[in-house]
């Protein structure tokens, strides 16, 4: 727009923190790479039923465990199932668990920690003691109870894992907020007349994002491994459905005879992990306005 009413040049236009963060992120090659890999994985996971080379149930018991070949790029498992197909289907579960459970943890944890840290006093005491109690509750018993009461389903798995992971998130957020709350710019926001909710949203949370982002990128892979552990115990995903975690744990059992059963699912998980870390580091730098602007 180039009308006479325009007061600031485009270069001088006010822009949001997120817009600036995106501009900075775009210049970070490694973060872009990480983001693209993750995006690619998500797309593949969504399209798997249509693009997987073999059917999900297809077995070829005669073939047995075979190393990578032209027909089966990543080899087959002991039942003669295509490993690539299994990784693709497993990725659907693993990525869904990783992202959704972490998102649940993020939303609950950040909100909980921010409110407890900002309001302080008795509210803080009650909220954080609740966190302590949940911490003390044996995680397995909690999950088994959930499964017993509600029956086994994948949505519950997301919730159960998310319900455990938010505790640490809440603690990190709370300690960040407690120090931010003392800052004069928060007092300035109070004197301007902002409501506590708006102060938390606009002034506190954006300044506490650094550690939260780093912790989030660490949470996603740990959630994926947690799912594998639960599945291994028979509390999570059940065969023939599969996930990366399950594939890795089966692969580990037979890694001396059939190493490709461990290597390829392991690569998929590792690649995700790297990409997440690159993206997470990039996001943290991008959101830190004090970093070099160009």
């Amino acid at each position, binding site marked *: 727009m180039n009308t006479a009413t*325009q*007061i*600031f040049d485009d*270069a*001088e*236009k*006010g*822009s*949001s*923190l997120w817009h*600036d963060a995106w501009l900075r992120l775009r210049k970070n090659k490694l973060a872009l790479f990480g983001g693209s890999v993750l995006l690619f994985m998500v797309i593949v996971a969504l399209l798997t039923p249509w693009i997987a080379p073999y059917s999900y149930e297809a077995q070829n018991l005669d073939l047995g465990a075979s190393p990578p070949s032209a027909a089966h790029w990543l080899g087959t498992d002991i039942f003669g199932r295509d490993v690539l197909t299994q990784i693709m289907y497993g990725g659907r579960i693993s990525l869904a668990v990783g992202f959704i459970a972490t998102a649940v943890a993020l939303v609950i944890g950040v909100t909980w920690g921010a409110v407890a840290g900002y309001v302080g006093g008795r509210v803080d005491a009650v909220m954080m003691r609740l966190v302590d109690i949940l911490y003390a509750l044996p995680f397995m018993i909690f999950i088994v109870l959930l499964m017993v009461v509600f029956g086994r389903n994948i949505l519950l798995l997301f919730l159960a894992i998310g319900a455990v992971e938010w505790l640490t998130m809440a603690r990190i957020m709370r300690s960040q907020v407690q120090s931010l709350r003392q*800052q*004069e*710019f928060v*007092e*300035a*926001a*109070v*004197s*301007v*007349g*902002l*409501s506590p909710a*708006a102060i938390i949203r*606009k*002034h506190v949370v*954006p*300044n506490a994002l650094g550690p939260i982002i780093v912790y989030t990128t660490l949470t996603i892979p740990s959630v994926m491994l947690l799912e594998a552990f639960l599945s291994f115990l028979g509390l999570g995903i059940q065969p023939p459905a599969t996930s990366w975690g399950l594939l890795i744990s089966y692969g580990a059992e037979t890694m001396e005879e059939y190493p490709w059963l461990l290597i390829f699912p392991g690569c998929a998980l590792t690649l995700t992990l790297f990409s997440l870390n690159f993206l997470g580091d990039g996001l943290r730098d991008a*959101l830190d*306005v*004090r970093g070099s602007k160009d």
Partner: protein
Amino acid sequence: MALLNVDNLSVSFVTRNGTNKAVDNVSFSVEERQITAIIGESGSGKSVSCYAMLGLVPSPPGRIDGGTAHFQGQDLLALSEAELRAIRGRDIAMIFQDPMTCLNPFMKIGDQLIEPLTLHKGLAKGPAREQAMALLDEVGIRDPQGAMSAFPHEFSGGMRQRVMIAMALINEPKLLIADEPTTALDVTIQAQILKLIAELQTKRDIGVLFISHDLAVVSDIADQIVVMEKGKVVESGQPKAIFDNPQHPYTQKLLAAIPSGQKAADTVVPDPLINIENLRTWFTPTAGAAPVKAVDDVSLQIHRGEVLGLVGESGSGKSTLGRSILRLVPMTGGQISFDGIELSALEGRSLKQFRHRMQMIFQDPYASLNPRMTVYDTLAEPLLLHGLVNKAGLEQAIRELMDNVGLARAFVRKYPHEFSGGQRQRIAIGRALATRPEFIVADEPVSALDVTIQAQILDLLADLTKEYGLTMLFISHDLAVIRQIADRIAVMYHGKLVEEGATAQVFETPQQDYTRSLLDAIPGANAA
């Protein structure tokens, strides 16, 4: 021969963005039994030049490009690190701005003094203890016996600085380097410490190199003044010559920036905008403990259109009083009415809506701006929150604010960290003015700024007060600043209001002893 003779010293810092000459061909000297003061604003290289000759500038990024620093005939710059270490602390001692960070918080004062005495002087425990007490006595600590078993946090800032000076004296140095030793102290304490340094210097025959940003402070004690700007010495000479006949434009600017003179008394019609009655704001640090009476039974009126200067030392409750009026801290008792409205009756929504009528400017412009919000966002927030402009009028309103506080429009999308202290304070002032308030509490708004910047911000505040028809409570520990901007003065001491009156009246005929001691402590009072 001079005790210390620095000749053509050059220091630079090598960073990714190029080489930055911090000290450029600087020469000065300290005579025996004399005080040389180096004056300059932050970034002028005054501290770097002293640290460099003691080998205390980390390298890299620091680099000494040349020059000599002869101390008792030895060139400090040519010495090895081991030889320097022997001189540092023994022949040359230092004291710093913040004594708290230099003392071990977990060690008793006595032990901290005894340790170097036993280590360096080989004294046994008993004599070391006696000597430590003698030193504490010498630096004016009233109860040396009790002080020996106290921890640093139990002392006030002034007492800690005395302990630091005692520690510096242990090895009977020939040269004492004092880096802004009184900047963090209250004005009456500052006067005492300055007096102490001057006394010790004559008594113990030591030369003193006194680094400060405050010309007024050194005017009383220095024998020689060196003025630095941007790494260069621009002028040096005796205090009288510098004050009476400054040669360099920068020195003239510094002198002009010393707050002086008095605001022409406006005829303020007594028309109370704010009426405070028996205000009490008490804090209870832990449940059951005796409350800290930060503000205790204060009654005060602030009249429409006046600037009321609120003076007091740290801990006097002056900031708490300002924050109580703005309802930023809960009051314990009493009443505050604003334009006839009882403030304590406002809650929740009605309080939030009321807030735009009174705003605050904070001391530290580094802390009072959200580091992740651009100037645009910071200024837009109050405007939009109170519905003062619609989206279409927003840019116009922000531009007006920026023009009014003297910020270039090109800065609109920059973040706080990209600005200097003075510019940030302008942003903070803009934010406070955005809601078109009737009343502003300015809490030490210029204390964190260099003296020339301080003068600019004071001028800006004075102009804006007129332009916006503001009523202002101006809180400061600095009487010279208050005198320049305030119509009336209120003095607080230990949570109580001890004196109140027109500026001229308080300065010329103070009624209370405490006010008188404050006035006597104003640095530079003797020189002027």
